[in-house]
């Protein structure tokens, strides 16, 4: 996810990463806060899904 911030800036693809960078450059703090919150929510959700899938696929790793 961190790479998207740099990649979108390099290739000028309109995306969440570029929005974040533009918000920071324009000192638009609420927009930057919101973008970082969305980023973090995506990462946490994906980590949760991965952990649950881990337990589903590998019987040794089971929730007590």
């Amino acid at each position, binding site marked *: 996810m961190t790479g998207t911030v740099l990649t979108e*800036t*390099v290739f000028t693809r309109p995306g969440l990463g570029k929005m974040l960078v533009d918000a*920071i*450059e324009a000192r638009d703090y609420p927009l*930057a806060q919101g973008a*970082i919150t969305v980023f973090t929510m995506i*990462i*946490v959700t994906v980590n949760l899904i991965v952990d649950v899938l881990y337990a589903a696929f590998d019987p040794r790793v089971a929730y007590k």
Partner: protein
Amino acid sequence: MALTSKQVPQTLETAGAEPDTVHWQLQRRVRRWRKYVPIALGVTLIVLMCVVAIMAPVLAPFNPSAQSSEYVLKGPGPGGHHLLGTDEYGRDLLSRIIWGTRVSLQVGLVSVLVGFGLGVPSGLMAGFLGGTTETAIMRLTDMLMAFPTLLLALLIVTALGGSLVNEILAIGVALTPHFVRLAHSLALTTKTHDYIMAARALGGSSLRIMLRHIFPNTISTLLVVATLYIATAIRTEAGLSFLGLGVLPPTPSWGNILSEGRQYIKDCPWLTTFSGLAIMLAVLAFNLMGDALRDVLDPRLRGE
């Protein structure tokens, strides 16, 4: 392909033995030295970078901020003695990269020191003391770990403004949760050893046990990880400078040069190429050094 009776070794002594000719001796020597190549390469690069950073005022052929209207956007070569070319303001690229080494090394080393200094004591305390302390510290760490490193550093630099010290603080704080988690797990495993129980029985206070028994046993792993995180810190610093949030121009930083050269990449590729190469070599050097340290200090970790 089955061996014929002529190829099967006849005696036990000659089975598997290599002929002791000069050719085989050379091959054995080459094989023995080949495993030290990555270590030697990493250490050489790091020493070279440190020397370049310290001797920057002496080594750089031109002043990195000296603009010149004659040699604008010239390619590398003997034109005006600019070895790596110039940028759009006529500043010499080689001098800028040499001065950029200073910034990158400073940020890389000091931010890891900050992260180490903040994170390791907290992690050791959390692991050893347990209970409420552990829960509090680990919940805080989990909260910070939810952010990717670059984003957390971005957040802090936005709040504080871009400068060298703010960058160091930001990356240091962004690396702290990694150190806390590592120190915590190491303290948990070290706590179960018998000599800790013996130290307790002899009347050792918690602080004394942590300082004199747990910390020295965990320091080899922590050192290896710290070296690898220097590479991450240098990369994050380049990323921050690339986005314009690191050291402010005209102070040269590899990320700054990379970002400025992006506009001219089709006609003047040397700007981005050489600064990118510098970043790559620095990260490579510290990665090699970290791997070498790991092999030297803790062979059990090999192959992770």
